[in-house]
């Protein structure tokens, strides 16, 4: 029975083959069931008992007046009026939906849909006006003045004003969590100024070319609503800055509103009817994201039509099985996330560039890509090839054990002289296989490899010191804002050292100054040259094995269209893109 047949069967009330779920699960059957029970009374009862929290949201109805009411009408009419719902899965829960705190992929997924930033990345990573209609940059390149679009309103109905933008920036910087360091390094909150109701300006401490790109992570909140719901806290007359409110509720102007939030299980969104922007024809009225951590469940739900889109973290076997189903397709999309073997460049023996170079030529990239991570793309240097400023002249080492042995011999090493530790995330099949392949490859050129699986928590802790960081560390890293700066600064700049992103401990003055110069260079062409140089400078020192650029996969029900990749974390899950065919 195909997925479509099942869905059809479901809607046929009274069919003998239907399941308990089918009998009561869909709207039509439910109506019949209720009718049979003479349920005018029951429905009424259900309606008036809505005083507490409801099961599609935690403190929805209790906390916010306007929001809650809105939500309830939205959702209760949802099932019956033939409205469309996109049901997708995610593999980790949504810890918070506070725009000052969200950092991981699920949190940002929620934020991009609930809130609007001033600018938004397109498919190429170019920034488009979003809440900002347009902007100007002062002659000294330090003041950015944004004109807000007219007609944008928050879900509360309040208009979006310059004051809200200012308040959002202040809140972001004061709370000082999440991605606030991206702005905090170059911007003081006193320098965010309201010019008039629709004009707001940001004056930076110094010229900082990635500034606009980092603004995609400054989500604008409804000042009025936040202050109305603030509790006592550390921030003077702003109390807790609405932290406990925004932890469970939204105060955004985004295309979707928070309709329900059950952290462990699911989060749901409903379309904001007065959104200023446009939706695709057939865009979904509701989106439900379920937290599902195991593959068999995803398989079952996709097959029975209860899930329309899988997360990007299913196993290869699951994607294969899903692709074989009728009415389900699996799409593979190239990303800008690179899989690195980060080499500690300050600890013997990998502090010797010859050892690193030998490793780079001794590793079998093709087997890694084709057998262990099928569908992934070749890497060439530190920056993924799809970036506009990628340096195509970089020499990407290829598998050449003979050459690797020669490099080691020339540097005076004999077989068995070198032993290195390779650390990866425990129980992660892909990384374990990579480790084994590396061990085997290195054995061929006379390097001993000790495999050292660790928890992610341990790996982040090891990274904080040069001595603690193992010789080889397997890490995925992808941009969180659409700029090459995110790739270079966090991984290779000395200032950003001692995190899991910079396990190379590169600390190279030339690299630092090239990154700094790029940051303070406004002219795009000049910046591209600097980036080309920094890529070369990094690649020549072999601080990493650049293994592959990730392709991410999702399984979609055939009628789900519109998924659009954007090179910034979770901006590809922008629901207005999706539509039902």
């Amino acid at each position, binding site marked *: 029975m195909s997925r479509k047949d*099942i869905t059809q069967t479901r809607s046929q009330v009274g069919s003998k083959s239907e*399941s*308990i*779920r*089918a009998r*009561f*699960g*869909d709207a039509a059957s439910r109506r019949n069931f*209720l009718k049979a029970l003479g349920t005018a*009374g*029951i429905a009424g009862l*259900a309606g008036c*008992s*809505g005083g*507490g929290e*409801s*099961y*599609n949201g935690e403190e929805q109805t209790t906390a916010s007046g306007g929001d809650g009411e809105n939500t*309830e009408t939205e*959702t*209760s009419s*949802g*099932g019956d009026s033939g409205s469309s*719902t996109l049901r997708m899965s995610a593999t*980790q*829960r949504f810890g*918070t939906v506070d725009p000052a705190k969200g*950092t991981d992929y699920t949190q940002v997924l929620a934020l991009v849909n609930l809130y609007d930033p001033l600018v938004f990345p397109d498919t190429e990573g170019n920034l488009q006006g979003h809440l900002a209609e347009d902007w100007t940059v002062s002659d000294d390149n330090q003041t950015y003045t944004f004109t807000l679009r007219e007609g944008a309103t928050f879900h509360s109905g309040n208009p979006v004003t310059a004051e809200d933008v200012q308040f959002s920036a202040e809140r972001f910087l004061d709370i000082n*969590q*999440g991605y606030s*360091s991206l702005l905090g*390094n170059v911007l003081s909150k006193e320098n965010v100024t309201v010019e008039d109701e629709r004009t707001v300006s940001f004056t930076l401490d110094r010229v900082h070319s990635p500034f606009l790109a980092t603004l995609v992570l400054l989500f604008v909140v409804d000042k009025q609503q936040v202050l109305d719901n603030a509790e006592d806290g550390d921030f003077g007359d702003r109390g807790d800055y609405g932290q*406990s409110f925004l*932890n*469970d509720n939204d105060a955004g102007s985004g295309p979707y509103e928070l309709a*329900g939030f059950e952290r*462990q*299980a*699911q989060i*749901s969104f409903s379309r904001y009817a007065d959104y200023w922007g446009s939706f695709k024809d057939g865009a979904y009225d509701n989106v*439900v994201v*379920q937290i599902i951590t*195991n593959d*068999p*469940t995803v*398989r079952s739900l996709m*097959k*029975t039509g*209860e899930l329309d889109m899988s997360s990007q973290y299913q196993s290869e076997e699951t994607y294969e099985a899903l692709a074989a189903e009728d009415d389900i397709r699996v799409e593979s999309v190239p990303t800008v996330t690179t899989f690195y073997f980060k080499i500690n460049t300050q600890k013997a023996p990998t502090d010797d560039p010859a050892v690193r170079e030998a490793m780079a030529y001794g590793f079998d990239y093709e087997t890694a890509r084709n057998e262990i991570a099928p569908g992934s793309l070749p890497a060439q240097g530190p920056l993924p090839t799809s970036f506009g400023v990628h340096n195509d002249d970089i020499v990407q080492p290829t598998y050449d054990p003979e050459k690797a042995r020669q490099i080691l011999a020339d540097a005076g090493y004999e077989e068995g002289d070198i032993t290195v530790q390779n650390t990866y995330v425990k129980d992660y099949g892909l990384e374990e296989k990579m480790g084994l392949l590396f061990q085997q490859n290195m054995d061929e050129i006379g390097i001993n490899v000790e495999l050292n699986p*660790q928890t992610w*928590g*341990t790996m*982040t*802790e*090891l990274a904080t010191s040069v001595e603690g960081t193992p010789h080889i560390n397997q890490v995925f890293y992808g941009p*969180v804002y659409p700029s090459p700066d995110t790739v270079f600064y*966090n991984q290779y700049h000395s200032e950003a050292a001692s*995190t*899991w*992103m910079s396990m190379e401990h590169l600390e190279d003055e030339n690299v630092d100054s090239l990154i700094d110069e790029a940051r303070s260079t406004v002219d795009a062409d000049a910046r591209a040259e600097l980036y080309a140089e920094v890529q070369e400078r990094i690649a020549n020192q072999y601080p990493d094995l650049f293994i592959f650029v990730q392709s991410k996969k999702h399984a979609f029900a055939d009628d789900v269209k519109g998924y659009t990749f954007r090179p910034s974390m979770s901006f590809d899950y922008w629901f207005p893109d999706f539509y039902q065919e």
Partner: protein
Amino acid sequence: MKYWQYLVRRLAGILVSLIGLSIIIFTTSRVLPGNPARMALGALASEEQVQALAAEMGLNKPIPLQYLDYMRGLLVGDLGTSLETKRAVSTDIVYYLPATLELITVSMFLTIVIGIPLGVIAAQNKDGFADNATRLVAFFSVSVPGFFIAIMFQLIFGYLLEWLPITGRLGSEFGSGVSRFTGFLLVDTLLSGNLAAHVDAWAHIILPALALSLAGIGQVMRITRSSMIDVKDQDYVEAERGFGLPSWLVTYKYTLKNAFIPTLTILGLLYASLLGNAFLIELVYSWPGLASYGVTAVLNNDFNAVVGVTMTIGVAFVSINFLVDVLLGRVDPRIRLAMEEAT
């Protein structure tokens, strides 16, 4: 020593073991590698941000001092803030515990209504077909891991037969029609007057509860069987038979009542251990309960949440054991006597 004195001593013992547990769990969660402040702040947090949050959480203090702070908080019901959900851990626990309790209560119910009658049948037909058949079932249910059974159930009843839902507690379409009163969905759906949602809640709970109860069913079945066989051959049972009492009355009233004591002990232990076993089942079924909250907490170095969940399960474990002791004392005066003598 009087019975109540015995109970007071037991209570004191429980308190000591809970304090011991809290020290072990607290220390373990603090010395585990991985800086919780860094984990909480995410990828791009600067060193200053990490330091600021660590100071705010008191992580800079020596562990004994941190422990004292924690215990001070505990006395007023403050378990600290979860780094991941950014809410009070006590709020989270109160929110998620009912889902787990509901799951294990239904499991427990299934264990009793399936396990005990099967045990009785097996005892009645000792070495017969029914006995061997139930032995096979018990062997299977005890030896196959619960999570495997859970996944098989999903594949069979969800994927192939499509009888039952395999994830969550309630279809998303019912969410807005059910208000949260107690957190027990089977109760709240009724209080909300939403019968369709009530049926849906049952449909959701059957598979995980059954998967969770199988191991217990096996144990209860075997224990009931063997104690029934023991009791069945006692003189007084023979005598009752001799008086001509109907066999069902002898079996279910006189034999089972006395054979029930070992079963009750096992049931008590089972209920507590179900809390622990629920971890994998909740993950498999995306069941939004305390166990899956705890697992995520461990994965994220969310140490306040880890301590909170572990302590909750610890408290439940010792309380249930205590309760079973009290119950046993009431059911069987001989046991009460033994307790008094032992102290």
